């Protein structure tokens, strides 16, 4: 299987967008190479804006550019943007409903050796509570490319979460706002994942299938707005949901789904994610294992979900 980082798909898409639309502008805060915007910068130097290490100013400049008709992509690490400039994103961008695309790269625990300061595990929570904001977390480089091309056309702001590590390329088709059922072994539990952990989730589903537990796997790349139809149908069909994400359990994709279910179709849920803890230095796979986001932990969560499903049936 081919391995690529989601940020690489983003970089490729930007060059295509630059050719298609002269209003695309790209900004970075001293991270052109690692956020993969340097190809755009070389090709369209007049539309590339280096802001230096100043994420707040970058967000404000992007708001001004958008107010004057541009479609700005602001690229940095997720811990800095939106980590450092949330107020600017809230006030200058979201309240004005301007089409600024906030690209949070190097998100999640998997940046590994850099340690907790650089492991963005709160960014989805911060972004999805903002009115007007769209939130997208692609699972692989191909989806990241497709997502980048699509979000350029949204009339309002968008947050796109990207990662550094090379991760498996999964064959998936991306439609903004439409959750995709990637695998459907059966209806014991619905696994809902986003980001590169979709791959670990698929592995878990296959191993569970060999053990006789039949699950479906949904790639829920668009966290806001949620694909209510697909997700509620999965809840009805399976009666139990496990969410999988490289983010704090609080406030992330799992929380978004729990809000949806609580209001529409209360369903037992298990969360795979960061358990209210900071990360640390280490290799990505070591960290995912230690903090409960590995394939084996996903399988354990599925089994817990099934046991809760039984309890509810017995109790009713």
């Amino acid at each position, binding site marked *: 299987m081919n391995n690529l980082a989601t940020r690489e798909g983003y970089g490729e898409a930007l060059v295509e967008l630059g050719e298609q639309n002269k209003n695309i502008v790209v900004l970075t805060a001293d991270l052109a190479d690692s956020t993969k915007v340097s190809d755009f910068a070389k090709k369209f130097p*007049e539309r590339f804006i280096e802001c230096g290490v100043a994420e*707040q100013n970058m967000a*404000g400049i992007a708001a001004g550019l958008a*107010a004057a008709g541009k479609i700005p992509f602001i690229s940095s690490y997720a811990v800095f943007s939106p980590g450092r400039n949330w107020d600017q994103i809230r*006030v200058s961008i979201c309240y004005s409903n301007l089409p600024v695309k906030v690209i949070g790269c190097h998100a999640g625990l998997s940046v590994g050796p850099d340690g907790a300061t650089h492991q963005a595990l709160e960014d989805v929570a911060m972004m999805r509570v903002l009115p007007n904001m769209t939130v997208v977390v692609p699972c692989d480089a191909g989806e990241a490319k497709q997502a980048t091309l699509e979000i350029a056309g949204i009339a309002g702001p968008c947050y796109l979460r990207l990662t550094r590590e090379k991760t498996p390329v999964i064959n998936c088709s991306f439609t903004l706002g439409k959750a995709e059922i990637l695998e459907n072994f059966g209806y014991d539990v619905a696994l809902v994942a986003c980001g590169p952990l979709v791959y670990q989730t698929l592995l878990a589903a296959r191993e569970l299938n060999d053990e006789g537990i039949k699950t479906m796997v949904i790639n829920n790349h668009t966290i806001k707005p949620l694909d209510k139809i697909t997700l509620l149908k999965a809840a009805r069909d399976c009666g139990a949901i496990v969410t999988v994400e490289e983010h704090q359990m609080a406030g992330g994709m799992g929380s978004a789904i729990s809000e949806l279910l609580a209001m529409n179709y209360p369903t037992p849920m298990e969360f795979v994610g960061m358990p209210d803890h900071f990360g640390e230095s280490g290799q990505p796979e070591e960290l995912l294992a230690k903090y409960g986001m590995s394939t084996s932990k996903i399988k354990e969560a599925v089994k817990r979900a099934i046991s809760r499903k039984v309890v509810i049936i017995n109790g009713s």
Partner: protein
Amino acid sequence: MTDLSEIANKIREDIIAMLVAAGSGHSAGPLGMADVFTAIYFSQALNLNPKNPWDPNRDRVLLSNGHICPVWYATLARAGYFNHDEILTLRKIGTRLQGHPHYRELPGVENTGGPLGQGLSQAIGVTLAGQINNADYRTICLMSDAELQEGQNWEAIMFAGKNSLFRLTAIIDRNNIQIDGFTENVMPLEPLADKFKAFNWSVIEVDGHNIAEIINAINKAKAIFENPTVIIAHTIPGKGVDFMEGDYTWHGKPPNWMDAVEALRDLRTLGGKINYE
């Protein structure tokens, strides 16, 4: 400039009426900036047309310290951007005159502002878009002095200086007050002009109540092609209302009815110098 001074005084009367009707809001800053706003919207120094407020070629005026918006709203209404009757809806439910300005909620309102320190970055973005498009418009960013205590401004000042954004002009309301007291006690800004010069800005200092001088400075900035310009407008907070002038306690509160009667008497008699007709 007598005519323009009269307009500025009418704007001050509007501000008092708006604040007393709203029952909340800021008094000192809006009164202090009435002459600057008059210079911007009632002279020919800038390309602004209330009948075509979103003309692509217009000059852009952004307000960073959004809390002084009563002066912006009153000026826009008097200039004909929207119906003057609407000014008394300030801060009321359903109004377009939000407590802090909201992007394009009203004709002429070019940006969202309020949380301090964000406007200059927005103005840079607007200026850069013009540069990319080979457009000639100028961008004016109105700011307060104390908001320069927000770090984002210095990121923006550095950026504009580095990129020699000569179509950008910042106008700072140097009234020396903020909520907790005098700026130089709370967190000193001086030497303010030298700070801007060190960041590659041109600096012009004006009496913020001399409308001719303000217009002159805006025009002078147009002739500078090397770098961005900051106009430091020295103003008296609460200008025109004797009991508010220079008193920082009027920064963040509105007049009550009794205060308003006295304030309007001051404004209509120019502090007792003329009889009110």
